[in-house]
């Protein structure tokens, strides 16, 4: 047992013991599950004499989470031992993760399933703490609604959310993303033929990538009107420069010896480009595609703040804030988060298929 594990076990057990002592004074049948968890947590101190498996900690953390979620509001004003139980359950989950990662450490590659468990435990813990704190401490929903409220809102306003998703994602983000990335790619290939243009455009492209291009959103709304065209235009402008810069860098990625080989094959410019240089640029191009996937969604939503028809994620967020319908706003954010992550994930998956030869993919880490 490492020093950290020792302290975690000691504090978690001790805290449960203290909370259990405090909880005894309340009527017996109130929050029975929570008391059971605290008692078991107290008993986990036995580990200092008798080894306890790491799954015991997992079970304790899970029991604690369930007990906490079911007993919110069972006691009138939330008592101190309730919060101590929350901290205790969190410490048990931490201890579990700590022990699991130690157990997994010697064989890093052949445990994808168990390895996934660790970030999942972290995510679950975050959600449980969020739910328990917002409801247990009566945080005003205007400030931060509980995850369950957001979930209910997600289910209730599914048609609205879907319409917004279509307007923002399908109509604005995807065309803008496709046009921006394709034109960046084409311009990069054209520029690549002229060293003079390359020397001139590359520093400017690098500079433009660092600029707050999103600021052109109001101008685009003036030029292209309120509907999706102006949002797509913002997305094009935002995605163009990262693509340009990355592709130009990628086209230089093939080594001289490989290009010499193509020359000995008497390959012409296009054959060299299609069979050697573009595939070699793959990792760079996908890097830009991944950067752009997030940029595109941000660009479309922010552009909707500057004027939009009465549908769209940015519109819903800005009006929801005005009406203090914060749970709807959070539902919209959840949709945006899922859409953004899925978009990124799809591109990462395609990358694994296309650039399967690259060391970063062969090593099993994307």
């Amino acid at each position, binding site marked *: 047992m490492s020093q*950290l594990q020792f302290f975690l076990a000691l504090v978690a057990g001790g805290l449960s013991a203290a909370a259990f002592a405090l909880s005894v004074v309340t009527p017996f049948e109130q929050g029975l599950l929570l008391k059971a968890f605290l008692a078991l947590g107290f008993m986990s101190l036995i580990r200092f004499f008798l080894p306890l498996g790491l799954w015991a900690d997992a079970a304790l953390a899970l029991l604690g989470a369930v007990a906490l979620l079911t007993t919110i509001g069972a006691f009138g004003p939330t008592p101190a031992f309730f919060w101590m139980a929350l901290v205790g359950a969190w410490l048990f989950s*931490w201890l579990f*993760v*700590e022990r*699991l*990662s*130690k157990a997994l*450490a010697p064989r890093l590659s052949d445990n994808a399933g168990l*390895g996934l468990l*660790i*970030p999942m*435990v*972290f995510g679950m813990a975050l959600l449980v703490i969020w739910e328990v704190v917002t409801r247990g401490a009566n945080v005003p929903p*205007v*400030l*931060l609604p509980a995850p369950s409220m957001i979930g209910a809102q997600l289910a209730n306003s599914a048609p609205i959310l879907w319409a917004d998703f279509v307007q923002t994602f399908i109509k604005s983000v995807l065309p803008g993303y496709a046009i921006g990335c394709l034109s960046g790619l084409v311009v990069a290939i054209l520029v690549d033929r002229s060293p*003079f*243009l*390359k*020397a*001139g*455009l590359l*520093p*400017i492209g690098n*500079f433009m990538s*660092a*600029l*707050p291009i*999103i*600021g*052109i*959103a*109001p*101008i685009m*709304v*003036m*030029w292209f009107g309120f509907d999706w065209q102006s949002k797509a235009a913002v997305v094009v402008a935002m995605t163009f420069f990262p693509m340009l810069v990355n592709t130009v860098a990628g086209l230089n990625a093939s080594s001289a010896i490989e290009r010499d080989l193509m020359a000995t094959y008497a390959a012409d410019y296009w054959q060299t480009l299609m069979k050697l240089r573009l595939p070699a640029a793959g990792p760079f191009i996908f890097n830009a595609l991944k950067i752009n*996937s*997030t940029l595109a*969604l*941000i660009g479309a*939503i*922010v552009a909707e*703040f*500057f004027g939009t028809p009465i549908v769209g*994620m*940015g519109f819903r*967020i*800005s009006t*929801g*804030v005005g009406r203090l319908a*914060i749970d709807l*706003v959070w539902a919209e*954010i959840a949709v*945006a*988060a899922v859409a*953004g*992550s899925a*978009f*990124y994930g799809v591109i990462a998956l395609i990358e694994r298929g296309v650039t399967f030869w690259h060391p970063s993919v062969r090593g099993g880490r994307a």
Partner: protein
Amino acid sequence: MNRVLPILTVLLAIVVIWYVAAIGMNANWQNTLNTRAALTNVPFTDFAQQTWAQDRPVLPAPHQVIGEIWNATVALEITSKRSLAYHGWITLSSTLLGFVLGTALGVLLAIIIVHNEASNRSLMPWIIASQTIPILAIAPMVVVGLGAVGITGTVPRALISMYLSFFPVVVGMVKGLRSPEGIQLDLMRTYDASPWQTFWKLRWPAAMPMLFASMKVGIAISLIGAVVSELSNAAGGGLGVRLLTGSYNGQTIQIWAALFIAAALAAVLVMVVGFAETAVNRRMGARPA
């Protein structure tokens, strides 16, 4: 000289294209104006000059934007609400505060992640996932939400900048702190170095190049965060507010001026980080590249 000439050529081309585009895009409105004023047969050179001198052009000519910047900075008192220097300062202060907080948070997280396998496995996937969330899009909402509990002014905007800038720093620093090779770590062990000494004398110096590379990305992105988070509160001031009011009033020259100032700020901030990098490199005895 070899590097400056191509850049200047491209810049010149951009300016020329801009002026030509300004003629084309403003021509419609200028025609309407000239018809109203019963002006006919305006020679092309006069017409071009007219399109470059409109009050609310679709695309203002570069000299109009530069004139506006001059009027709104040098010609005005710095405390005036119309001064771009005043608004630029508001944006700059939240950018810098957010950047410092974000870098500190990023370095701290990276240190924890490098030294603790459990936090590496539980935090890294979520840190990466957190960046696929378009948080920038809800920046105005966060500002309003924090305003409801009495946190107003620079701090909520700085929080957005912090959220955006911590990510490149974490990822870069984790890479940087792990860059010492096994042989170097072994050497530290043969010296009987404590973990603390290994950190300060090996890992930290080895991470410097990555730190500065990610700080350059981070400061540019925290400026973007600051500008966007200003969009929610028109009274608070800042370059984002200039963009917003400009778009409501159709003041295109004002929008472009604010954009130019934001671009200049971004360039200066990235350059400052670059200078700090050179200075640190020199102190650490690195050979100039």
